[in-house]
């Protein structure tokens, strides 16, 4: 699987390259600035791009803008965005085109190599990987205001949180140490309570949940 990597801090870039290579990824390009990233995305045709939000030369949100533009040029181009801080605002912009294949994680998540690599693979496959902090913000914002959400059991809320992060039923079952069947039951309950249409497609399910959580009241 070919990866384009953009990160301006040498130590982090080097570490990420080694981590991804250790897990069998091929690094098509590892760049350190916005313009270089734009060129690499256009030329290398990667399977997934791993991009830091803040890049030279402006040190603003160059990486994010670059990723969004690349997805406009090539809809569905899988992009995993990393940052020192997460903002729901950015998550919303990444999810706006509704086509999936996006990830948005705190840089700290790299510490857990297994989970991080899992997120990269998921995004490359067209899935979603949202940072737990983003989801917690979304849930906290809706809590107490949203009656359908109030009708969920604590367990169902837990499942909803993991689902919104982009995890598959199997992964959720593994984390909560229950059977996949039990999770499937929880998810159909959740969808019924929130009034969402049930879909067999994992990815569409995640996007529906995220759209529900992020909608304006």
């Amino acid at each position: 699987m070919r990866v384009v990597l953009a990160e301006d801090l040498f130590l982090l870039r080097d570490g990420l390259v080694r981590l991804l290579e250790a897990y069998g990824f091929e690094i098509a390009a590892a760049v350190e600035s916005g313009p270089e990233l734009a060129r690499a995305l256009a030329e290398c045709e990667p399977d997934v791009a791993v991009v830091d939000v803040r890049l030279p030369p402006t040190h603003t949100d160059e990486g994010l803008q670059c990723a969004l533009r690349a997805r406009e040029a090539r809809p569905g181009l899988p992009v995993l965005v990393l940052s020192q801080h997460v903002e729901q605002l950015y998550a919303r912009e990444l999810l706006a085109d509704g086509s999936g294949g996006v990830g948005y994680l705190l840089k700290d998540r790299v510490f857990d190599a297994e989970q991080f690599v899992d997120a990269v693979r998921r995004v490359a496959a067209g899935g979603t990987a949202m940072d737990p902090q983003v989801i917690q913000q979304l849930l906290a914002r809706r809590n107490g205001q949203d009656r359908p959400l109030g009708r969920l059991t604590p367990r169902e809320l837990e499942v909803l949180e993991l689902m919104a992060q982009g995890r598959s039923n199997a992964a959720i079952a593994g984390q909560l140490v229950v059977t996949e069947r039990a999770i499937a039951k929880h998810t159909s309950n959740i969808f019924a309570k929130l009034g969402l249409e049930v879909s067999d497609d994992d990815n569409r399910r995640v996007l529906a949940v995220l759209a529900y959580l992020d909608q304006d009241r």
Partner: protein
Amino acid sequence: METSSRVRGVALAAGRGLVVALVSLPGAVLGFTLALVSMSLIPIGIGAYTTPPVLRAVRAFADWRRVVAAEWCGVRIPPAYRPVPEGNAWTRTYALLRDPATWRDLRWLQVDMTAGFVTALLPAVLVFYPLEGLAVAGGLWRLLSEDGGYWYGFVHVTDQVSALGAGAPAAVLLVLAYRYAPSLLSAHFRLTKAVLGANQGELAERVRVLTETRRDAVDTSAAELRRIERDLHDGAQARLVAMGMDLGTVEMLMDKDPAKAKQLLAQARQSSVEALGELRELVRGIHPPVLAERGLGDAVRALALRLPVATEVTVELAGRADAPVESAAYFAVSEVLTNAVKHADARRIWIDLHHGEGRLRITVNDDGRGGAVVGAGSGLAGVERRLATFDGVLAVSSPEGGPTMVTMEIPCALS
């Protein structure tokens, strides 16, 4: 002794008045004419190049008058020119024309060539004219009235008697000169000060406000630094120490007790995650990353998305303000929002950011229970102080029972 120094003072006043009068009339006429011509040539471009040197010359002329006013009569006229920026002729011309001191100079030139000239000349006339009269009475009349009489003021001098008649008003004038010549010269400089000097009351008030806001700004930033130091000391720093200790222990246990070492490694990793989390919160409190990345509009939008209350944000900003202004505005909005959520129990909030006529205007309205006051120790008083550093103002309308309307205005330019 007393009299001789008085006489010297009177003579000095007369001489100085004469010098000022002789310089002021041509100088003021020339300066005013050149300035007028130069400024009227600005539309065709030439004026942009001639105006800065002409106005600089006018300033030098005015500065000379300031110097002699202070030296000769102790009248201090502090200059209040704004610094002329570097750059091309157009920017300098523009800056000069925007300076109220420039227009004060031009007004003064008109006064100086009329009333200023007269008041400067008066002490000289009052001293030299009676001297002439006394000379006439003393015999000079013979020379002057050769062609059938000589007029000294209202007296027609034809012989010794009428010459003495001219001597009488001259003596009276000389007494007047002795008493009033020095104060007449200082009257000239006081007139100059009235026209040329900046409004002292306004200046004093401005200085008072600046002193106060500067002290507040320094106090606030010192307190902020103290808080940051404490947070780092008790938070991230302590966690890094713990991490280092854990890693040291791991090194030792690696061979003896791999299971225990693994457990400590996990603990160290957890510490690093927590340290990062604390640093993140700290950074958010110093300068939120989203503010640096996106500017005020999106930073406020991101802030609104973190609120547990439905919030509508409208942004009309054509560019970005200076970083310190953005930061002050951001934290002001943040504080107002915290109040709305915590104390007012608002269910809906509307935020409006708008820039026009050189002012950033932010309104935050909520449907909460109201009753907010800008009192001592309240968060709003802090907001007011923070904004005052930038000459910004805060207005709060919050009747008991709500709704609350907070308006903030900061003069600033967008880029």
